[in-house]
């Protein structure tokens, strides 16, 4: 009883969750078997939803630790910036309107400015223009970027950026390619502004 009470104090909005989950389940009741897991939340999604992406310090640390445990950063990150560019531009994949077997892109341009020549970019995330250059093309920074793209919340709890590797949206090689797009000195991301 006491524990339950304390829990309710710690998660004041929790009390309303079962009703919300009932309605959500009914809203997606027609989902095919393979899609059902998308309707339910993992622990991180549930807590970030409840906190509207502003977890307490302790919660943030717990999330980052849990998410970090899912990330394996390769010792060497070799990729093709050209392929990375296609992935950054590609917003297809995983939508119910996509033909089966569609390979998903990262759609980084939906949220980030990247190459100075590309004007069609969104503003939900910070600008990544000249990202590699600003980090002196340091291999350690490239490895960090790999970890960020693999699982954004291993670095920032409740980041609104998708956990591309963790959720299986992008493969290891695809992530290496987008990192090359950010870090290759020859990549348009690092080209001077005209």
């Amino acid at each position, binding site marked *: 009883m006491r524990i339950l009470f304390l829990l309710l104090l710690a998660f004041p909005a929790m009390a309303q969750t079962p009703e919300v989950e009932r309605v959500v389940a*009914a809203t997606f009741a027609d989902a095919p078997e393979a899609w059902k897991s998308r309707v339910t939340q993992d622990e991180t999604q549930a807590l970030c939803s409840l906190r509207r992406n502003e977890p307490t310090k302790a919660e943030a640390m717990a999330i980052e630790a849990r998410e970090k445990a899912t990330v394996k950063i390769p010792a060497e990150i070799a990729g093709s910036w050209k392929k990375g560019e296609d992935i950054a531009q590609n917003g297809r994949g995983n939508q119910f309107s996509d033909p089966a077997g569609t390979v998903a892109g990262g759609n980084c341009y939906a949220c980030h400015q990247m190459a100075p020549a590309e*004007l069609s970019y*969104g503003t939900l995330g910070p600008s990544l223009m000249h990202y590699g250059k600003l980090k002196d093309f340091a291999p350690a920074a490239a490895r960090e970027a790999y970890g960020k793209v693999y699982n954004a919340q291993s670095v920032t709890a409740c980041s609104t950026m998708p956990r591309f590797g963790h959720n299986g*949206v992008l493969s290891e090689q695809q992530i290496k390619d987008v990192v090359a797009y950010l870090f290759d000195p020859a990549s348009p991301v690092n080209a001077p502004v005209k």
Partner: protein
Amino acid sequence: MRFAAILLLALTVTAAHAQDSDSEKEIERYRAMINDPMANPGYLAVDRGEQIWAEKRGSKAASLEGCDLGVGPGVLEGAFAHLPRYFADADQVMDLEQRLLFCMKTVQGLDTKPILTNRFSAPGKASDMEDLVAFIANKSNGMKLQAPLEHPKEKAAYAVGEAMFYRRSAVNDFACATCHGDDGKRIRLQGLPNFSKPNSGAQETMGSWPTYRVSQSALRTMQHRLWDCYRQMRMPVPVYGSEGLTALTVYLAQVGGNAVINVPSIKR
């Protein structure tokens, strides 16, 4: 075609990208057309909806004129401006589309299966639901959107809708709030209205649906917009006319409350 291309340009390009004065003028001209019933193809849906409303159908050979949309049987003026709302006869909060399906069954004795199959129009295949919504919503033009929030079930629907707005899920970890949680954001070049609090952008949205979508050459309703956003969220197809979509609409009608209704509008 030219109409569509210019309009797409007008509605896509943001202020960040300066226009030369020629296209500025074109854009102005097409903006004016938006308010011209003769030029907005959405008004074809309004006309079709008027016919469907009066047509005797179903096992009871009745028209929808016996349907109470919340302001009395058959009364159209102002009905849409006060939806979604609680209906005692169904003991449920309903948006316009849910209510119409309810009336088709109870007033007309109509089999709604084919109606649901055709819920979204496609080239050469009209949708009764889109047409009816266009006709009925148009009868609230000039009025303010004031969905009631008094009945306990209306309040409960609002709470669920608000929670769904912030609820993250699926492979991209998206919630509605990911894209509609802040002012002045855009995805690629498309401006994103902020629905996290009452504001004029949310009002502009809620006063402008149903809309004729140029990119789809079709009149679309809020049910379709939410279907489209759940698609972008990588979620499964939401059930049309479900409690959840109504809950979200109840929430949106509050953050966009007091919007002046002017529909069907015309959008990208």
